[in-house]
């Protein structure tokens, strides 16, 4: 599925300073029953956002008006657990285009890249600076520059670079997806398939 191009994103951020945020928190399994990719944002962090009687949990960050923006900032090992791409869909559908953490779970990171959400891995120190800055002043803006591969805390000008492989970077800058690439080399794949032993 093609997605929006990603170039430079300047936005306030939503801080979630919890480690090991797992995919069951991002989107609980009972909300995986849709057969189309619509509406998952409504249930993003469902059980942290809502009480069992569907009233809001006022102290959760997504329910605090002062925090908003297109960048979600999470603690170490963000997105651990299940392979459900629905977790990345929920993040995207809610309105986030970038997730920042000091460490990502493998499959979640890949899923984000495949649907146009940029995972930005920073050092533990820089992550703490972002948490401190956004919590002290929720209007603090971050700039994520994919082309230059850096993220900047605009209030102080502090910046850090991040890794992404050249292929994925090009995909995100242009809104390309992997299937287009694979379909272009279909002949090679067919030839390869004939030689496989299993």
């Amino acid at each position, binding site marked *: 599925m093609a997605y929006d191009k990603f170039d430079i994103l300047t936005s306030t951020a939503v801080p979630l300073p919890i480690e090991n945020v797992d995919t069951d928190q991002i989107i609980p399994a009972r909300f*995986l029953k849709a057969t189309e990719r619509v509406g998952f944002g409504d249930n993003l962090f469902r059980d942290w956002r809502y009480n069992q009687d569907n009233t809001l949990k006022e102290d959760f960050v997504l329910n605090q008006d002062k925090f908003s923006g297109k960048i979600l900032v999470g603690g170490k090992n963000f997105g651990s657990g299940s*392979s459900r*791409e629905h977790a990345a869909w929920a993040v995207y559908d809610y309105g986030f285009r970038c997730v920042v953490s000091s460490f990502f779970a493998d499959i979640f990171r*890949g899923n984000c890249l495949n649907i146009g959400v940029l995972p930005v891995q920073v050092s533990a120190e820089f992550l703490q600076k972002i948490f401190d800055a956004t919590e002290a002043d929720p209007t603090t803006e971050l700039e994520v520059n994919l082309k230059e591969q850096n993220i900047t805390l605009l209030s102080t000008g502090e910046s850090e670079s991040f890794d992404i492989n050249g292929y994925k970077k090009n995909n995100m800058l242009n809104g390309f997806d992997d299937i287009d690439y694979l379909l272009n*080399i279909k002949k*090679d794949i067919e030839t390869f398939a004939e030689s*496989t032993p299993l």
Partner: protein
Amino acid sequence: MSATKTLFDKVWDSHVVHKIQDGPDVLFIDRHMVHEVTSPVAFLGIKNRNIPVMHPEKTFATADHNTPTINQHLPVADPLSANQLRMLEENANEYGISYWGLGHAKNGIVHVVGPEYGITQPGATIVCGDSHTSTHGAFGAIAFGIGTSEVEMVLATQCIMQPKPKRMRININGKMSKGVTPKDVALFIISQLTTSGATGYFVEYAGEIFRDMSMEGRMTVCNLSIEMGARGGMIAPDEKTFEYVKDREFTPKGADWDKAMAYWETLYTDEDAIFDKELTFDGSLIEPMITYGTNPGMGMGISNDIPMANDVQGGATTYQKSLKYMDFNEGDSMMGKPIDFVFLGSCTNGRIEDFRAFASIVKGRKKADNVTAWLVPGSHKVEAAIKDEGILDILTESGFELREPGCSACLAMNDDKVPAGKLAVSTSNRNFEGRQGPGSRTLLASPLVAAAAAVTGKVTDPRELMVELV
């Protein structure tokens, strides 16, 4: 330069169709398993592009995540679940894919039926839109979970694009002590590595403890690889593996078998091969394990006390949040904590060996009155073996009932939900907040620990209930 290779390198490298400079490898997939939850949007994708499934004969579909575990002969009551199941059936029929739906004799959890029917084979690349696909690594396959975009890629081109992971080997020698099962070995490893300790790696398990395990036990270990963040885990195939695979419905026969064996016998790590990371543990020190927190890394020997926040890796805030959710305190003993539910099943521990272990403890005892027990076989084949081996009689005699196959309370997508606040001892794979139902609290453990809890109504060391062998 030496040409020595790890098992992982041998299988991965032989499946690379194309290498992209500063990018991922294009990896050919031998077996694609599909279930109802992560596939509908992928099928919609190829439909919109108007392209067929490239290799329907390498694709297998089963319904498991969403299915009820009672009255499977009746229509599925939840309209959303019913719709997902219907979609899978329609898609499988439209694209010519084998479909083992609800009520089919071969139905069961995708990672249980794959090996049972010989779809899972050594040296294969196997993917499924489910993180516990790592299970199939027990056969010396490269198997891992993928997202729905990748499911679409495999349907369309039989390939995915992934950077090659780093290699880790975990060596454990020694024998499993009394009361210790493969589940305990896996929970022990995860407790040592944490849930992110193997992220970015593909793990090979090596050493006496894994060699001694049955194929079922190896599946349990590989299944849990993802819980320490690993892409997958694998064990080199041996005689036990070949014996298990032989004569199953989808395994090669005759001359094809000989050809496959010639390949499979090359599947081991060369003596001098280098791993990016290597860890070694003494297996004889592993105890029956139990978790006390909200991720699978928060586990310990059952007789230990819950660690103090200052003594654990990671942030104290997250740790205390986790204990608060569980309603436990630092320094608490787990032993004797009253429990409400027991769940035996899932792709981790829903195989015949797990039911044998459970029955060995409950035999001659009665289910505790305060416990609701859900015993869910991983497949119809497991269910049949439970009956054939007389295990069902033991369970019935002890006051337990057997449910019908499926993922069930492992992720509680169906009606098998543990109510808020209730404490469950579960043989499944995740103890995340609300995993088994909103507000539910989960203790992960082996089938032996689950059985001991089921008959005593509290957390109990199964060794206390085991008959001494003379």
